[in-house]
């Protein structure tokens, strides 16, 4: 195993360097000819739209994370309580949603909610109500798609974790008259903590960086940029208006925010006696 470690170390060190080399190039704004210092950042921070987009991103990501985790965990528990056939059905459906490429999923959901040809409006009797027109409903639509394609990861991981919990523990809890919710909160959640930590952090990272869904479903950020999130905002700044350094600055800001969130989370965990 020392051998394995020695072998692995240079390899992932290499992987690290490669990843960080890109970051560095990005921090310097794709190696600009003039050094601007924090000029890009001050330009960014004095821009009112940036703060608005930031707020929208945080709220949207938080909503996505909470919904994804809630749905994923609930369904994982549900999976343990049903027989083989419904379990297989749910598993296959979830795997299907998981397997769907983000760009495909976005288009299909857009098509489902299409004002003219979509079945959802027909069923709900909404006529030609446009879901992407309003700011809130457009975000809601994207949220549904994001939850749809990301809950399977949570579900499968948590389910695998629950399966690893000895059955006697759960039986004992049930015998003591614990309700399903109580078993989850007092028995399963603490035992699954390492796995829950991973899925939570991952969800935060992914949902904060949602790109394809917003880009495709709201046509690059919605009417007058009402549905922009930071990642799309950065992309638009960099590629649509060729202000690559501004886009890079937004990328760095995103990175710092995610880092802060993760560190706070890890700190909280460590205070509870968990080790990384």
């Amino acid at each position, binding site marked *: *195993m*020392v051998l*394995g*470690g020695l072998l*692995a170390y240079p*390899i*992932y060190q290499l992987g*690290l360097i*490669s*990843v*960080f*080399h*890109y*970051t560095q*190039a*990005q921090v310097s704004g794709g190696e600009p000819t003039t050094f601007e210092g924090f000029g890009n950042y001050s330009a960014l921070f004095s821009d009112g739209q940036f703060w608005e987009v930031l707020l929208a991103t945080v709220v949207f990501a938080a909503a996505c994370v909470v919904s994804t985790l809630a749905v994923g965990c609930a*369904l994982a528990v*549900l*999976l343990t309580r*049903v027989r083989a056939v*419904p379990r297989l*059905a749910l*598993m*296959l*459906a*979830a*795997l*299907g*949603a*998981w*397997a*769907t490429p*983000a760009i495909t999923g976005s*288009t299909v959901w857009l098509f*489902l909610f299409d004002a003219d040809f979509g*079945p959802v409006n*027909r069923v709900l009797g909404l006529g030609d109500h446009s879901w992407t027109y309003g700011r809130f409903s457009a975000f809601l639509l994207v949220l549904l798609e994001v939850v*749809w394609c990301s809950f399977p990861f949570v579900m499968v*991981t948590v389910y*695998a*974790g629950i*399966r*690893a919990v000895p059955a006697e523990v759960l039986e004992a809890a049930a*015998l003591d008259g614990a309700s399903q919710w109580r078993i989850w909160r007092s028995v399963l959640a603490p035992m699954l903590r390492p796995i829950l930590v*991973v899925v939570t*952090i*991952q969800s935060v*990272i992914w949902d904060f*960086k949602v790109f394809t869904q917003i880009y495709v479903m709201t046509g690059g950020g919605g009417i007058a940029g009402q549905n922009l999130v930071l*990642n799309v905002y*950065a*992309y638009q700044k*960099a590629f649509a208006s060729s202000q690559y350094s501004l886009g890079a600055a*937004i*990328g760095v800001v*995103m*990175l710092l925010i995610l*880092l802060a969130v*993760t560190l706070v989370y890890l700190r909280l965990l460590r205070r509870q006696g968990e080790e*990384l």
Partner: protein
Amino acid sequence: MSLVRQDVESRVNLLRRFTRRPGRTAAEVTALVVAAVVAFPLYWMVLSAFKPAGEIRGEPRPWTLAPTLDSFRRVFGQQDFGRYFLNSVVVAVAVVIASAFIAFLAATAVTRFRFRLRTTLLIMFLVAQMVPVEALTIPLFFVMRDLGQLNTLWSLILPHIAFSLPFAIWMLRGFVKGVPEALEEAAYMDGASRARFLWQILFPLVLPGLVATSVFSFISAWNDFLFAKSFIISDISQSTLPMALLVFYKPDDPDWGGVMAASTVMTIPVLVFFVLVQRRLVSGLGGAVKD
């Protein structure tokens, strides 16, 4: 004594009768309904792919009376479609194998060894994932140009390995951690070498985790079109599947039938891969790790 036993038994029966049975039926119905809702978008995708063009633009009906392969013909009729497909497969398989191998060794290293900067390293894996990929495309382009790898499949394989590794390692860590250290000690007691423990004991035990992470790197490599679009600039023969689908995305007048057919074609291999590893994804872990 017997009274207590009776009491316990009746409580168990009560539990079975009043919570488990109706509970289970309700749970199963819920599971099936959720499955149907979750599967519906996929069903609609496949359905729309088979609908004739006129029907897509008409009344949205959940069935079609005149299924047609027109949309698929448009997709497969593209030049070099087979080539794109093959390229996609090569990239995805290379990424999956390389990242699974490296991630397994690395995850074991960061879980089982305590060395300096271990925590820093772990945090760095997290940080590496937080960088928005979209913002990195241009610096990556320069790196690939300097390496002379533009227009080759390597320009897709290497970045995908780099981007899937941090997640894979972070994910596998939990699974490696779940294997009791007593097991490791017992293996050494029985005279197993480190390599033997690594490949014959630890590897099968974390296989479900490895499968889960492989699924993830497969999807990200298979679905990506950002890199393919940015790094394969002139040599079309090195292009991948998503590029063949982009043809149908016209913002003002989307060819819904073509989009849905192309999406179906693209989703099916991933689905097959998932179904193949489905059992591995969740099984093994439960039985194997218990002492």
